[in-house]
């Protein structure tokens, strides 16, 4: 058995350390003398680099370090994965582009054409992370007025059409959201393999849609027992529908040579969190996954160690950067042991990340991934 490990391309800038909140890679913070991509040349002028140049380095680092590809997230203030992937297609060789996208934003037949074209450009390296949730005010920002459950209905139909036209020939469909009469990809495009489909979403509507279309069911890291129960439920539900569901976890790591060094980064980062960041995190959401994580209430914590929810599990990552709250902190061996635990509990694939994404891709690839599969007892003994 092998496990697919993805890395992440940070599409909202990156920072050189979790200790500081300024995004000094990319132009999301005000450009200054310590920024790169874009940065300033020796005369203080724009050096001509753009953030895509830094993303290209992360993608190449990840593929060199043993990752199969990377998740490319999409939010209102990120660069877009459908653009990033073809821009980097010819500069990478094995890196798979996991495109996060919300199906309602593209016509499904056109999305199939774009996907098949990208498959041709990359030799079959396109993967989808279908996103349906989020919602509330941010959905209207996107121009999407559908309700939460309708969005899952639409996602299901979108993928019905996407798969249907991919076979080529005459595909017809009459649904609530899409109707198609006799459409199909041309033979040149239909010959490509359908991209692997990753799905997320914690609500019942999401699980139902995933059971029909997902190759992988993707979850943020949750407390291990809760995650085990969730994966078991997903696998059971899919089995009842006659399918088989693989499960994947998305998690950030702070892995250092010693546990003390890892927690030191977390402590300093926690102490540097600006008050406005805490305030931001108290806003409402209609994402069930986000609500499950907010229950940890990291924005109310006074000390970083109040957020240690289990050995090597810290629940305050969303204070330090956008994204999920829970992550893994520890020595290389401890991080490997926690990932081993997750594999034993039914995790079939991972999306890992660390800050800064470029250097940490090498570190995790060299120091943590090779330890996986070794006995936890031996790993933890070595860590002491």
């Amino acid at each position, binding site marked *: 058995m092998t496990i697919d490990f993805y890395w992440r391309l940070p599409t909202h800038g990156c920072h050189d350390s979790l200790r500081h909140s300024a995004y000094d890679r990319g132009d999301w913070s005000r450009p200054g003398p310590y920024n790169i991509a874009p940065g300033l040349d020796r005369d203080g002028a724009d050096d001509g680099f753009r953030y895509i140049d830094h993303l290209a380095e992360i993608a190449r680092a990840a593929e060199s370090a043993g990752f199969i590809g990377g998740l490319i997230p999409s939010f*209102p203030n990120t660069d877009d994965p459908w653009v990033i992937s073809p821009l980097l297609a010819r500069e990478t060789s094995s890196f798979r582009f996991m495109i996060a996208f919300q199906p309602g934003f593209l016509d499904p037949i056109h999305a199939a054409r774009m996907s098949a074209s990208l498959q041709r450009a990359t030799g079959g390296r396109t993967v989808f992370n279908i996103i349906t949730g989020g919602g509330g*005010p941010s959905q209207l920002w996107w121009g999407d007025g559908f309700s939460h459950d309708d969005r899952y209905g639409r996602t299901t139909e979108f993928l019905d059409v996407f798969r249907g036209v991919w076979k080529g020939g005459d595909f017809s469909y009459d649904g609530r959201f899409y109707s198609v009469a006799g459409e199909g990809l041309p033979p040149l495009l239909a010959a490509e393999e359908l991209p692997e489909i990753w799905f997320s979403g914690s609500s019942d509507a999401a699980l139902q849609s995933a059971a029909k279309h997902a190759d992988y069911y993707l979850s943020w890291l949750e407390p291990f027992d809760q995650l085990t129960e969730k994966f078991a439920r997903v696998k059971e539900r899919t089995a009842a529908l006659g399918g088989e569901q693989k499960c994947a976890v998305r998690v950030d790591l702070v892995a250092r040579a010693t546990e003390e060094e890892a927690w030191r980064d977390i402590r300093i980062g926690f102490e540097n969190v600006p008050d406005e960041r805490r305030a931001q995190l108290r806003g409402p959401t209609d994402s069930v996954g986000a609500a499950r994580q907010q229950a940890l209430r990291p924005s109310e914590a006074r000390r970083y160690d109040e957020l240690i929810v289990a050995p090597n599990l810290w629940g305050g990552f969303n204070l330090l950067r956008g994204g999920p709250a829970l992550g893994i902190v520890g020595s290389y061996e401890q991080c490997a042991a926690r990932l081993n635990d997750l594999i034993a509990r039914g995790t079939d694939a991972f999306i890992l990340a660390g800050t800064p994404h470029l250097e940490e891709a090498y570190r995790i690839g060299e120091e943590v991934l090779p330890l996986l599969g070794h006995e936890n007892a031996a790993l933890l003994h070595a860590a002491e």
Partner: protein
Amino acid sequence: MTIQTYWQLDVAAQPGRSEPSARPQAGTIFRDVRTRVINRYDYYARIAQAAAQTAFDGLFLPYRPEADDSAIVAATIAREVPRLTLIPEFPGSVASAVYAAKQAVSFQRATHDRLGWAIAPAADAEALDRTEEFLTVAHGVHGTRPFSFSGAYFEVQGGGFEAPLNRVPFPRVFLQGESEEALALSARAADVHLFGAAPVAHLRSLVEGLDGLAAGRGRSIAFGVIQPVLVREDRDEALHEAARTGVPAATIVGDYDAVAARLAELAGIGIGHFVLGAPASLEEAYRVGQHLLPRFRALTGRVRAAA
């Protein structure tokens, strides 16, 4: 006005070239070591390089439903040709206006603002209406925050891009079509209107008409033409090649000087954007770029100097 010349990268032309599935499968005497990753996209990159090295200003990628998606191809080659403008053509119906604008902004950010938007000709009046709303919303979220809109096709509340996404310019919008409704839309919403190739007298009346329409709305737009060409060192060779290959009726066929003069005539009636194309895209890009463009530029430079 500086004249812009674009080469047409037609993804559907010569479909067998560099297509792995079109390689001889058996019975070849040469040892074929090409892997699947040496493919059609290398050919697209070669055309792009040909255009870059022969001093075209950009590439125009027509929408071809039977072949690769023009926007994916444009992004795939963008970083290999760091100066060319890339103008993929796409129907206005393929994406939500907000999402299309967001993709455009990402492209602009990554390429030093080298994207153009060519909206494929609309099939009917409804498609034209949708295109207009599509452009209104796309411009709106790009330039205004908060942006709200409620129309027949799109609805946005509290929209609009934040920094740094809002720092790049919106791509130049190229529209087409010669119906009354299409021209009226261009008068309101195009940056450049692209005409199909036609006799110069006909183009002159179209340019004057649309210029008047735009002026009536207080706007000034630029004009372009999608012009097939077939040039050779001498006229007979060009005519012979045209007869052998069969070219579209409006193709300008001739020797380098004659074709340059015809293009300069078009520049003289106010056409500033030239999308040039020929069936063998790679070979003809070199020929046109090396021999025709310098002559054309010399002529239009003289016209400008005289004016």
